[in-house]
């Protein structure tokens, strides 16, 4: 079991590095088209977004498949999202702008799509810093609250993507659909839990109300059963 887990771990680590390797090869062989820096920049951003989505997909997958082992990989996937976002940022600062801070400053002030990128990156940066088991222990209950910011990062990242496009929206629409499904799943779970917790709250009215609702629901379902 342990050896199987370890090999899976190494596969995840290697798989996460493949996009980078592929990009390096494409850069070396000048395969990135007429605007290679932009291509590099965009592809790194794409991979960061993909890893962010994979990180968010773990919880729904676990709930659906009942396989608990996946949570162990969530941290690694999240760190890869951070890794590619960092490379994305470094290409912007170093390669595209050659660290010309005045030009960078004007660009950031005037480009509203970059603000969302900065927001997403700041969050992912904070999450990466506090991703270790040690930080998790130290932060206690706050850890989970803090790491829920990943939802805001995911939304900010997709706005960042959308907001800089001039033409075709097919690709960002596809990514938006995925984020909608991933976050929608959580909303559904939250609503479900809220209903249950309402049932649990001691308090005459609420219990009554809930009981009534339940009665309606059960009578409805009875009817359905009869049919």
């Amino acid at each position, binding site marked *: 079991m342990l050896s199987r887990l370890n090999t899976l771990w190494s596969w995840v680590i290697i798989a996460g590095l493949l996009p980078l390797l592929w990009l390096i090869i494409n850069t070396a062989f000048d395969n990135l088209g007429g605007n290679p820096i932009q291509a590099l920049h965009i592809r790194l951003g794409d991979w960061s977004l993909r890893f962010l989505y994979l990180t968010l997909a773990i919880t729904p997958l676990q709930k659906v498949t009942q396989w608990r082992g996946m949570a162990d990989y969530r941290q690694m996937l999240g760190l890869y999202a951070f890794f590619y976002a960092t490379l994305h940022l470094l290409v912007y600062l170093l390669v595209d702008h050659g660290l010309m801070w005045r030009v960078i400053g004007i660009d950031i002030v005037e480009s509203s*799509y970059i603000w969302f990128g900065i927001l997403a990156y700041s969050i992912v940066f904070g999450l990466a810093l506090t991703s270790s088991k040690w930080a998790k222990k130290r932060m206690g209950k706050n850890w989970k609250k803090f790491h829920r910011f990943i939802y805001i990062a995911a939304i900010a990242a997709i706005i960042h993507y959308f907001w800089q496009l001039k*033409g075709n929206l097919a690709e960002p629409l596809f990514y938006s659909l995925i984020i909608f499904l991933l976050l929608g799943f959580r909303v559904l779970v939250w609503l479900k839990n809220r209903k249950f917790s309402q049932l649990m709250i001691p308090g005459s009215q609420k219990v009554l109300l809930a009981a009534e609702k339940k009665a309606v629901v059960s009578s409805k379902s009875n009817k359905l059963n009869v049919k």
Partner: protein
Amino acid sequence: MIIKTKQAILASEITDPLIFKERRKIIKAMMATLVAGTGIASSLADTDNSIWSGLPKGEFSNDSLMPTPAEIVKNYTNYYEFTFNKKDATKLAQSLPTDPWSVEISGEVETPGNYYLEDILRQQTLQEYIYRFRCVEAWSMVVPWVGFSLGSLLKKAKPLSTANFVKFTSVYRPEVMPNQLNKKMLDWPYVEGLRMDEAMHPLTILAVGMYGDTMPKQNGAPLRLVVPWKYGFKNIKAIVKIELLKRPPTTTWNKFAPLEYGFYANINPAVAHPRWSQSSERQLGSGLFTPRRETEIFNGYGEQVASLYNNMDLRHFF
């Protein structure tokens, strides 16, 4: 409004003219031997592969600019009639029939008419114009166009004093243009416009070729507009109609997003697009270790065109 135009061109941007000329000679010689060398090639020469060598230079052609490698210019085009992908446009555009081609010149002119392109060309002197080209998406290139002055063509049609604007219309061929067929995104056909004084300006040309050769279809064959001080989307491709109007025409991108793409669309680093900065640009072909270039007002043609916009608030008329 203070307009600074005297930004020196970096030494690294300038190719030694000797090297540049030598390189062009070599390329021309290679192409000439290619064409002359085989029977097939020479039969193509009179139709599609003819080469304009040793053309005189246009008045404002900037010979110190180093043209972007032709392969990049040929494979990085926004041709939304075909696709939203700059690379795929190269292949898809080949299905556009461009021969024969006629252009209608009408509206506020004394002598309206429909002319075959070759008849138009017979009356015009072709020149080479090495111009900067700056896209609203913040990338740029340097292209040696082959073309003629738009003003000289318009003069032949004798504009009336009521002609204040020029409207250009692109070809409408939904059977070969998938996004026209599926009515995707923009209103087709593509329409652009200029003010009369902009159209008559000697910088403004109609191009029929580039890099000494005929215009590749993806770059707007057989006839496209080149207005080097305006963003790329003003430089309409595959023109079939030129109308002189009293009132400004409704132009495609302006209609699609009026707050983002103005009628004037003058290149101006001080006026940002609502969602992104226009202060700098990525020069295509500049390599992985060259930082972005700072965009110049009117794309560096301020000396020639700034006076057209005296007393105009360029933030308002963006």
